């Protein structure tokens, strides 16, 4: 029994798990209210990412492009930055934030982003003396990192630009969950409320699930305000739930403004959620309320019906965002499943040293493999290999054909999950999230048992 941590041996990618940095930056950007990210690059860098968000959330999000054409590639895209910013400011009177997101092309060309932003600020001040629009430089060349790093970069860049000074202590806590679903944000906000803790979730994506209303008004946008971001410097503490998507912002606030930073286990599963709540309780002095003890109990009660009956010894392959994959692997262990394959999809060298992975490596009593810089071909090859039995896949929709073609049950989780309805609304974090995911897994396995006529009669009396 061993755990092997490897890196994909191939140079190229067949079926990527992550999009590039600018995509992640755009996702962080749309989490802010009165904000339209402006992507400095070719039009495809924006158009497809907007489509991707629409596929996952079944909603439209506004992201603009500087529409880089050939002449800019030759002579530089300065004028297009300025025109893009000013067009947005003029046509969108409510606009308060424009993250200016670079791409591979504009980083190779070497456009002076900061210089052009300074020029834009001057132009905005002259034309709109009563408005304040934050134009945020976000350097996200696509040839570095991935959507994971791009999300963290944009989040941190917005804090750097907007949270410029320390004011009176607010007593609040900053919560950085990373790239999660609206369902997770709603859960986290509820937990804070139930604990009586005043906190801010960055980014507040609750309204990414937005209604159709009789008055036809549209409310699909981030809820995190400029004031929320500015106030992050005055918080009592920061709690990062995602090491790779939130920790850098928490650390920045610590270095710059002395806001204590706590990086807790990503709250997937019962024990990780316990750790998060304990930490918040410790920071704020607020006790964990009965309501959450009860919710925890309901989740445990539900999961116990499933664990040793259906889940035990199931061999699980997981792929997706790093904090999600690691957190869900820990959850698998809680419910007696064996995470046999963890795929982490970019070249971040820190994954191998992540203490959560090291701990699993040290305690694994089953064969386990962690592949860094992985693509979904790594999954497919193992799925096709009879020596490498996989009973369940946990991952996002881009891996759907591995499951379909190899007849392996798959529960959709993470981003994007466009081939299942409404998953963005469900939490995966917290006690409730663990319960819902466990039940989704169970129902996925049950359906598979029925369609493959594999011991489906067990459920005759369950």
């Amino acid at each position, binding site marked *: 029994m061993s755990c092997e941590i490897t890196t994909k041996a191939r140079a*190229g*990618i*067949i079926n990527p798990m992550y999009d*590039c940095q600018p995509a992640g930056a755009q996702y962080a950007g749309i989490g802010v209210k009165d904000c339209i990210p402006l992507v400095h690059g070719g*039009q*495809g860098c924006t158009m497809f990412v907007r489509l991707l968000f629409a*596929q996952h959330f079944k909603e439209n999000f506004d992201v603009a492009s500087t529409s*880089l*054409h050939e002449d800019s590639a030759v002579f530089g895209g300065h004028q297009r930055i300025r025109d893009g910013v000013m067009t947005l400011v003029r046509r969108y009177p409510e606009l308060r934030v424009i993250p200016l997101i670079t791409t591979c092309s504009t980083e190779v060309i070497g456009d002076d982003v900061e210089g052009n932003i300074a020029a834009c600020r001057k132009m905005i001040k002259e034309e709109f003396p009563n408005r304040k629009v934050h134009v945020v430089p976000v350097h996200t060349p696509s040839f570095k990192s991935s959507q994971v790093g791009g999300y963290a970069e944009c989040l941190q860049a917005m804090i750097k630009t907007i949270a410029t000074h320390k004011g009176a202590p607010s007593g609040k806590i900053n919560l950085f969950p990373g790239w999660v679903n609206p369902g997770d944000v709603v859960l986290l906000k509820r937990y804070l409320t139930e604990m009586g803790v005043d906190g801010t979730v960055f980014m507040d994506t609750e309204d990414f699930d937005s209604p159709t209303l009789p008055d036809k008004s549209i409310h699909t946008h981030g809820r995190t305000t400029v004031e929320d971001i500015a106030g992050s410097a005055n918080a009592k503490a920061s709690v990062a739930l995602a090491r790779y998507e939130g920790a850098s912002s928490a650390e920045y606030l610590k270095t710059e403004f002395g806001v204590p930073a706590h990086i807790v286990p990503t709250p997937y599963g019962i024990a990780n959620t316990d750790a998060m709540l304990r930490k918040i309780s410790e920071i704020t002095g607020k006790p964990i309320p009965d309501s959450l003890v009860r919710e925890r109990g309901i989740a445990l009660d539900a999961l116990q019906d499933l664990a040793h009956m259906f889940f035990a010894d199931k061999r699980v392959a997981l792929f997706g965002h790093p904090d999600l994959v690691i957190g869900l692997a820990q959850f698998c262990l809680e419910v007696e499943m064996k995470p046999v394959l963890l795929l982490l999809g970019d070249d971040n060298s820190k994954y191998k040293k992540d203490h959560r992975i090291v701990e699993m490596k040290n305690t694994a009593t089953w064969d386990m493999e962690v592949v860094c810089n992985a693509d979904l071909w790594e999954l497919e090859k193992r799925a096709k290999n009879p020596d490498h039995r996989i009973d369940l896949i946990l991952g996002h929709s881009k891996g759907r054909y591995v499951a379909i073609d190899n007849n392996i049950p798959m529960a959709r989780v993470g981003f994007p999950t466009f081939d299942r309805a409404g998953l963005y609304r469900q939490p995966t974090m917290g006690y409730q999230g663990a319960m819902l995911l466990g039940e989704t897994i169970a129902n996925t396995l049950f359906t598979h048992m029925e369609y493959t006529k594999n011991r489906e009669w067990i459920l005759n009396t369950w």
Partner: protein
Amino acid sequence: MPMVLLKCDKDIPEREKHIYLKVDGEDSRDFLPVSNAQTLPGTLSERGCAFCGAKLVIGGVLKDTIQMIHGPVGCAYDTWHTKRYPTDNGHFNMKYVWSTDMKESHIVFGGEKRLEKSINEAFDEMPDVKRMFVYTTCPTALIGDDVKAVAKKVMSERPDVDIFTCECPGFAGVSQSKGHHVLNIGWINEKVGTVEPVITSKYTMNFIGDFNIQGDTQLLNEYWEKLGIQVIAHFTGNGTYDDLRSMHRAQLNVVNCARSSGYIANELKKQYGIPRLDIDSWGFNYMAEAIRKICAFFGIEEKGEALIADEYAKWKPQLDWYKERVKGAKMAIWTGGPRLWHWTKSVEDDLGVQVVAMSSKFGHQEDFEKVIARGSQGTYYIDDGNELEFFEIIELVKPDIIFTGPRVGELVKKLHIPYVNGHGYHNGPYMGFEGFVNLARDMYNAMYNPLLKLAATDIRGPANLQFLEAAE
């Protein structure tokens, strides 16, 4: 009434040249929107890039070809799981995408070795696949990687493989249209004429500019089989790489999408003397006309008439059932370009639907000439429309239904306007006779969706008793 400056465009008055409202007594000699021009930055344009025009629209359709994208991972990720073009071999084209995953060191030191390694790996990992397209992207074009030299080297080392290179960085041109162009011309110049087809009929043609969206190609192919016409190559729906290399042997080029694929038809005429016949494949009138034109070319008119009669007998009653229910509806079309002129007259003729506003992402002047000629008075014709313009146009024309992409579809849902996917379809195919019934059905189901009435109801106001009773 000439070009229109919308209220939302007061700060970008250049947009006036791109929006035309047709009124009685005018024609396209007087007014024509400026098109295929540079996009204004920051307008929330709907346009994509040249790379996607080449890879996603045309090359990526092929059912037996590795699509190697030389660039950072995003270009591959983003052009995967965004199209509905099945194949008869299990959808190889939709299941996979390949990237050289360029990193900073390759930008600094060049990415040719990376590309070579990735190409070899891809062929090694999928030993049954012997054909490949290689695409450049923004950064690989900027650093000047010689992808043709790499492809040549691999082909010399692997005699059983063939590789086509397409230099289509995202910044080339002003929209995806540039990528269509680059791929068309590259293909005819480098690959057509390198494979000889097996001729099985005395009537042969290429079917150009149809990408098998939800099975369009396969549906139309039933017609050609019934008529005894051999399709040498489908450019590129359900097509194979080697079929496309043998396009030079067809007697006729039938062109559906003239925007994305007219270039290759023109070149096949110039280089091989094969005549070009433009048709419309959406709509009963148009499809019948297309079959008549093709059959006239081959001198098999009677067969054509028999086919049309069969198809009308089978599908026309269903179409008419829907026509009774959707006629008089006002429709908007916001798609790429050609579907504006393919659809505006066919929905009018076949379904009695009036198209009141149309926006094209990447149409050229000739597309606007066609659509304004075929379209109605009182209709807005828009080049590269943007989000605020769409809101304003909706207020002006109040469409009952919009044919557009899924993201804009989600947007207009909030405005209580149903949408039908004008790119990937809802439940197609939409081409041919059966296909147009599908289109009519999807339009009907969208417009008659009871949820629309519920959406418009404010439960704080008086109850709409009639509707509630009907629901019971």
